[in-house]
């Protein structure tokens, strides 16, 4: 691995030298979005409303710049930060055992991407804080309703605790019991992506997350099948070294959007968690329909054995997104989370949300 890191350093240096010796076409783009919502939650004992930043696709600013470093070689930077107040995945009922309650306090910028890349006919090498090779591989979704709901179900109301029949909080949360286990997210990596071959590309990354070495590998696909519509999918693997051994996740997703507007999405992951000493599973199914400016979908998901052996955490959702113009989306979501735990009787959590994402 040291050898590959050295190669990246050499390549980056070569690109910078090339930039220093020849003027090049330079293009920078700044874009962003604001995504705010009103969320209502009923946990069986209490109901409340929350003004949130939708963590499915948070409020953020993105800066991308690239220049021709030399003939056939492009060098660039990617910088993206989010700015969330009352993150929809963190807020929870006042008095909860953990968490901020209805407000997370003053928002601060959170790093999403701070990376440099080199791109040529051989593919792309990225260095810095960015997506691991498999990040998003369980979230491929062509439904057009991802801003309302997708495999990452815990991004909305993930911080809420289930209550028992007496109304007392338990330690079990939505996030802890039905995570989509989307590999290792974003962290400091060196990543390589092959060029596209017939719609396929392979990506591999190595990095460090929370003082642990992480390796990821993923196969990505996206293609247009003509009258049969569009198809996209990914298969990923991650391995993170922890004290008890290797924490490994394997899984992926596939999504099909027929020309009629009908769409179907499937996602599955299996995590071998040596710290917990058991496998943790997640499965997800979404069916939807897109017609012009409207997109509608229903989904079902299940997390198994995540917070405790024998846990079954189910969720059902209905989502709708209206896109009157390309830069504005108005969305609505209702969903229910259930937790079936041995020896416990827990109350369902119901969530409703309306919001808008405006791209500026």
């Amino acid at each position: 691995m040291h050898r590959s890191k050295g190669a990246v350093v050499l390549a980056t240096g070569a690109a910078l030298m090339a930039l220093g010796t020849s003027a090049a076409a330079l293009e920078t783009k700044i874009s962003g979005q604001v995504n705010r919502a009103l969320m209502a939650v009923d946990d069986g004992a209490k109901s409340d409303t929350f003004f949130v930043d939708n963590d499915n696709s948070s409020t953020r600013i993105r800066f991308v710049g690239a220049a021709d470093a030399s003939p056939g070689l492009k060098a660039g930077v990617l910088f993206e930060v989010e700015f969330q107040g009352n993150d929809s995945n963190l807020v929870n009922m006042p008095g909860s055992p953990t968490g901020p309650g209805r407000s997370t306090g003053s928002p601060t910028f959170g790093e999403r991407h701070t990376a440099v890349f080199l791109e040529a006919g051989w593919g792309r090498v990225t260095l810095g804080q960015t997506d691991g090779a498999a990040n998003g591989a369980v979230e491929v979704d062509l439904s057009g309703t991802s801003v309302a709901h997708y495999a990452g179900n815990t991004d909305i109301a993930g911080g809420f605790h289930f209550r028992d029949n007496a109304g007392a909080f338990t330690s079990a949360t939505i996030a802890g019991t039905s995570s989509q286990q989307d590999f290792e997210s974003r962290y400091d990596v060196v990543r390589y992506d092959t060029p596209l071959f017939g719609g396929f590309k392979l990506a591999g990354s190595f990095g460090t997350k929370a003082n642990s070495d992480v390796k990821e590998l993923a196969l990505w696909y996206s293609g247009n099948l003509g009258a049969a519509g569009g198809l996209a999918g990914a298969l990923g693997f991650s391995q993170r070294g922890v004290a008890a051994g290797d924490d490994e996740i394997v899984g992926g997703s596939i999504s099909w959007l027929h020309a009629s507007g009908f769409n179907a999405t499937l996602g599955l992951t299996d995590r071998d968690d040596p710290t917990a000493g058991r496998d943790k599973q997640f499965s997800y199914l979404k069916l939807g329909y897109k017609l012009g400016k409207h997109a509608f979908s229903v989904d079902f998901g299940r997390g198994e054995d995540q917070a405790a052996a024998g846990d079954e955490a189910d969720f059902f959702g209905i989502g709708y997104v209206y896109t009157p113009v390309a830069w504005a989306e108005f969305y609505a979501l209702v969903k229910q989370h259930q937790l079936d735990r041995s020896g416990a009787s827990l109350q369902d959590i119901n969530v409703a949300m309306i919001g808008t994402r405006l791209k500026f």
Partner: protein
Amino acid sequence: MRPRHALPIALLGVALAGCSAVPVAYRSGTEIPEGPGMFSGAEGAFVFRSGARAASSEYEEFIRWRAEKARQPQR
């Protein structure tokens, strides 16, 4: 068929379908959407382009001048 087996089988179907498909770029719906922006207009981003192409031409002209100068006999 167990659910865990469904994905590899589905991806095998994708591989076969990929043989006849036209590749398209996939963009996650949880990223900043493509297309126009409220303030940024049709490009969907505030775009800054340097006058680098002109500078590049000037630089190339300088390189040519320097090479020509080097070929000339020194007085």
